[in-house]
């Protein structure tokens, strides 16, 4: 009996050991990173999702959720993304851009950090979305299904974690200076201004001061305003981590808790002033990091390199690109590329007890780690400058969003603007690939988009599905990498933040909607025809006509991938069927590079069995194509037509 008892206990314990340890090792000691992108980033279709808004897969992290209050957490998480990878696969997108993962200030001014851009701790995950194991599980499972995963990062600022003690009273005040006359800063202003001025100053987020935010009393300025870190554990409003000794003597301060790691100049008030843009706090009191400092550069490079190793990401989408100086990007991007390529180690300067610490190396070199930045600006000279000198691989193409998708596809502007934008891109963005980069130049790797989380959705500004489809046709056929903002496929139409950050799960993840299927079809076409992904782009028609001219709203271009060609013709006019010709007004038809007699088939209209729309190229490549209002045609030589995947 004793023997039997002993055996039964051993059996029980063995079972417990097996069940107890079966899962954890896979996400810990055995964690391995992968080799990343083996193909061409132009073959990808990026899907931008806000984790909090995509799907709620784990009810247990729904802390403080107020359903449908879109300024607050809604409950989406990484488990939700895992649960709906099939939905994304059905749509056809191939790369997931997920919102920031790091721990954030929980809430500020009655708005939550559901978006992830209010960083408090660079090295730990936001528990609203899961833990590190869940993040790894998401990336692993996404990789298994063929997705790339791009992490959204911010190097420019941290959350509103300290205030400027302007009046020296040790509390964060909201002050009003002046009774309408005279007493507001600057103190030397004695005369009563006209009109009378009342100055409102919040010590959380004072206006930009080129000398740095200064202390001020009724007697005048009193030198640099000390910053005071706030301790409010209930909302994670704590000094930035990693770091030590916030608020103590400068010599004792360490890491991101050093006062001098921040510019401390106050909030940007003039976006035309580059110095303000680079050194001012981002609106909302987001404290600007002194990224020109070598120690800050090293620290930010280390913390984000760690995330590549920790979760096996394939790329970075980089926030607030234009708010950080060029030398930083040259340092950061170069080091990240070399780290991914296995050519360098990155020091980890944030471990005070380990002066020689390094970021753990990747398991295998990660190829073609993609870094594209958000320069929220229409100035291509500025945006393009960040792609030069080994900085980012490309940018999130804001200038095209403004000058093409807004001006032309939403507002009916002349398609000549598209050609102009194309020329600016070719001229102002890097034309050679970065060393150890993605292997293609910025001009070919722009991340194209119609809308995103910072701007109203396309359908808000232009509540027209035909217009949306028209714009999508261009998005998926132009050169570069298309990026779809989550919910576009479900016809979301939210306006400005936060109404453009709807909860996707309220749609039931339907895949039978017309727009879902239209995007699905465009992606299939893009995948089926390499010229639409990798081909050189030549514009064959653009026009200044926007009224009732025969070519009003027409834009056409060819794409040529080593002799494989496609021709895309779009009509952006809301009013009429137009054509690629001005013969009636004394002009000429469009000429293409196709040989005379080539039969072209419109694969967008193709129903999968027989050609429904073919056209034959005339002499000298002449081709007059009629396209209905807001229509699009994607032609390939009939001999090249293949069944869609």
């Amino acid at each position, binding site marked *: 009996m004793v023997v039997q*008892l002993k055996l039964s206990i051993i059996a029980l314990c063995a079972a417990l*050991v097996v069940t107890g*340890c079966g899962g954890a090792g896979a996400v810990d000691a055995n964690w391995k990173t992968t080799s990343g992108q083996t193909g061409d980033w132009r073959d990808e279709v990026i899907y931008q999702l806000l984790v909090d808004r995509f799907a709620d897969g784990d009810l247990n992290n729904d802390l403080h959720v107020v359903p449908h209050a879109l300024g607050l957490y809604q409950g989406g998480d990484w488990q939700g993304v895992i649960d709906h990878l099939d939905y994304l696969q059905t749509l056809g997108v191939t790369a997931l851009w997920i919102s920031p993962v790091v721990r954030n200030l929980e809430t500020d001014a009655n708005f939550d950090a559901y978006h992830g851009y209010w960083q408090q701790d660079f090295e730990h995950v936001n528990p609203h979305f899961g*833990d590190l194991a869940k993040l790894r599980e998401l990336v692993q499972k996404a990789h298994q299904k063929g997705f790339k995963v791009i992490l959204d990062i911010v190097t420019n600022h941290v959350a509103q974690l300290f205030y400027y003690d302007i009046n020296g009273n040790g509390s964060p005040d909201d002050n009003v200076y002046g009774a309408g006359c005279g007493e507001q800063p600057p103190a030397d202003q004695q005369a009563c201004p006209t009109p009378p001025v009342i100055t409102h100053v919040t010590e959380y987020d004072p206006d930009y001061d080129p000398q740095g935010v200064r202390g001020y009393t009724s007697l005048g300025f009193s030198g640099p305003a000390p910053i005071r870190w706030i301790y409010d554990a209930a909302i994670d409003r704590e000094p930035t981590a990693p770091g030590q000794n916030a608020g103590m003597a400068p010599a004792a301060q360490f890491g991101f808790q050093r006062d001098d790691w921040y510019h401390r100049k106050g909030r940007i008030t003039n976006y035309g002033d580059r110095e303000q843009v680079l050194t001012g706090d981002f609106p909302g009191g987001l404290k600007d990091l002194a990224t020109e400092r070598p120690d800050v550069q090293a620290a930010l490079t280390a913390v984000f390199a760690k995330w590549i190793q920790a979760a096996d990401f394939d790329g970075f989408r980089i926030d607030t690109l234009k708010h950080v100086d060029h030398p930083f990007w040259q340092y950061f991007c170069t080091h990240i590329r070399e780290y991914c390529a296995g050519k360098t180690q990155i020091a980890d300067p944030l471990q005070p007890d380990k002066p020689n610490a390094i970021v753990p190396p990747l398991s295998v070199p990660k190829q073609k780690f993609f870094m594209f930045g958000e320069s929220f600006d229409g100035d291509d000279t500025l945006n393009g400058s960040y792609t030069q000198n080994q900085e980012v691989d490309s940018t999130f193409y804001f200038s095209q969003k403004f000058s093409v998708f807004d001006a032309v596809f939403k507002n009916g502007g002349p398609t000549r603007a598209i050609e102009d934008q194309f020329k600016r891109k070719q001229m102002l963005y890097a034309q050679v690939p970065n060393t150890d980069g993605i292997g293609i130049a910025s001009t070919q790797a722009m991340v194209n988009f119609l809308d995103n989380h910072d701007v109203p959705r396309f359908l808000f500004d232009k509540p027209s599905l035909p217009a949306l489809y028209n714009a999508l046709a261009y998005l998926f056929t132009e050169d570069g990498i298309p990026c779809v903002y989550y919910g576009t496929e479900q016809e979301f139409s939210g306006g400005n933040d936060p109404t453009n950050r709807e909860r996707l799960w309220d749609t039931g993840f339907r895949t039978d909607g017309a727009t879902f299927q239209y995007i699905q079809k465009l992606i299939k076409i893009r995948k089926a025809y390499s010229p639409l992904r990798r081909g050189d782009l030549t514009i064959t028609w653009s026009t200044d006509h926007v009224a009732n001219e025969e070519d009003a709203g027409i834009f056409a271009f060819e794409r040529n991938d080593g002799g494989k060609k496609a021709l895309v013709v779009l009509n952006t006019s809301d009013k009429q069927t137009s054509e690629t010709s001005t013969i009636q007004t004394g002009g000429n038809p469009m000429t293409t590079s196709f040989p005379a007699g080539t039969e072209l088939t419109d694969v967008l209209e193709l129903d999968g069995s027989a050609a429904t729309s073919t056209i034959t190229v005339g002499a000298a490549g002449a081709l007059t194509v009629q396209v209905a209002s807001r229509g699009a045609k994607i032609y390939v030589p009939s001999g090249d037509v293949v069944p869609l995947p």
Partner: protein
Amino acid sequence: MMKSRQILVAVCAIVASLSSAARIWAAPPASTTTTQQPSVPPVTPPKATGESARGDVGSPPEPVATPTGFDFGSYGRVGVGADLRGHEGYPTNVVSHGSRLEEAPYLELDFYYSRTIHDDPAKRWRLVLTPAFAAGDLFHYSGDFTSHLAIRNAYVETQNLGLPGLRLWVGSRMYRGDDIYLFDYWPLDNLNTVGAGASYQRRKFEVALHAGLNRLDDLFQYETLEVPPRGLGPAGQSTVLDRPRFVASLKLTQQFGNFPGAKVSLYGEVHVLPSGEYTDPTTRAKTPLPADLGWVAGAQLGGWLRPYVFLNLWLRVAGGLAAYGELTVPTGLDPTRKVTDAREVVGALSANWESKHVGVMLGAYVRRFNDAGPGPYTPASYTEGIIAVRPHVYLSEYFHTAVELSYQARQADGVDFVANRVLTPQVFRFSVLPLVAPLGRGTYSRPQIYLIYTVSVMNNDARIALYDPTDFRYSNGVVHYIGTGVEWWFNSSYR
């Protein structure tokens, strides 16, 4: 991972090897108290004499032996210690049920009133009322008059009324079986409900049935909202969620022999939680809370050679709600807001051996817990285990010395939020307790007045798991506890 497996295998091997001690099974003491029960033989408990003698230590009589009329009993422990670094001493456990040596003070006051029925001495009824004070609320430590008071028992029972061997009770009751004294842990059955029960004992077979309700003031089970007053005046209250948990238990026990003897118990619980609806107080949005179930199946095998020389083995498997225990809310819900897949598996051991000069207490358990939340890698799921041995040397009739050695470890399935890796906290502990036992020899002899010194050696993961980096305890891998304490029980109403 291998490291954790090795740890668990080591614990299991030790537990298994100890089953050899079954050769010296012996009867446990007659009864103990609210927070410590050695195994109790189902019949013929040794009569308490209040005298100290090997095999008949000064353990209190079983509650049923309280006389007619008013009677009083108590369980209590009070202690204080320092860490030799200028702080109050503190416990160092990383498992759910670790060493009890540094537990916070706790006090139960048992009041009984009992009468015979129709002057038949075999038939009785009695009231059991047990207020208890917890959480270390000692006025002379804090100067604070506030105390946390709970009514741990408030029930009336009849004995042998209608049928010899039949007990009936109704009221609010701690309802539980044998424990592992060293860990203050009931590995098989430990219920707290308001309800009713019956037990019937015939010869050496006993069946005990119980059913009751409990409902925590938690939004998982209970919610009130303010509503406008009917007229003028303060806001009214509306109860929008009230779903008490129904818990029923059945225990079958068969005893074999007296001294030496053995017993086998089979045990089961059913938990039923009705559906409800949570209402967001701000938006009044409704969230359905589906009905849910829980279950426990378990067994106990106990044996004894003579009083206080015993071995108990337990196996408990719990699912659904019951995996979390009966007086708790789940730590994780599945996507349907249920906990169907939650599991708890426990294998446990408790033993005691006595001789004239030496006594030895032994306890161990291995516990596997699976949380109901989605995904396999959650830190809410874990495996843990502990083994402890406490030999006593009786230097004289009243002056004893005990030492306690223990090892405990835990491993979560998921990554720790702070460490960004899986933690395997482990603690080795060594304690010395010179003690005075006014009632004489015996590991279960109480009261026990003692001095204590404990040194705990914690690995880094233990410190990370237990403390925030800003906590003064975070930096201490070697923890001292030096202090004094007392534990007593008599006439305690532990079941």
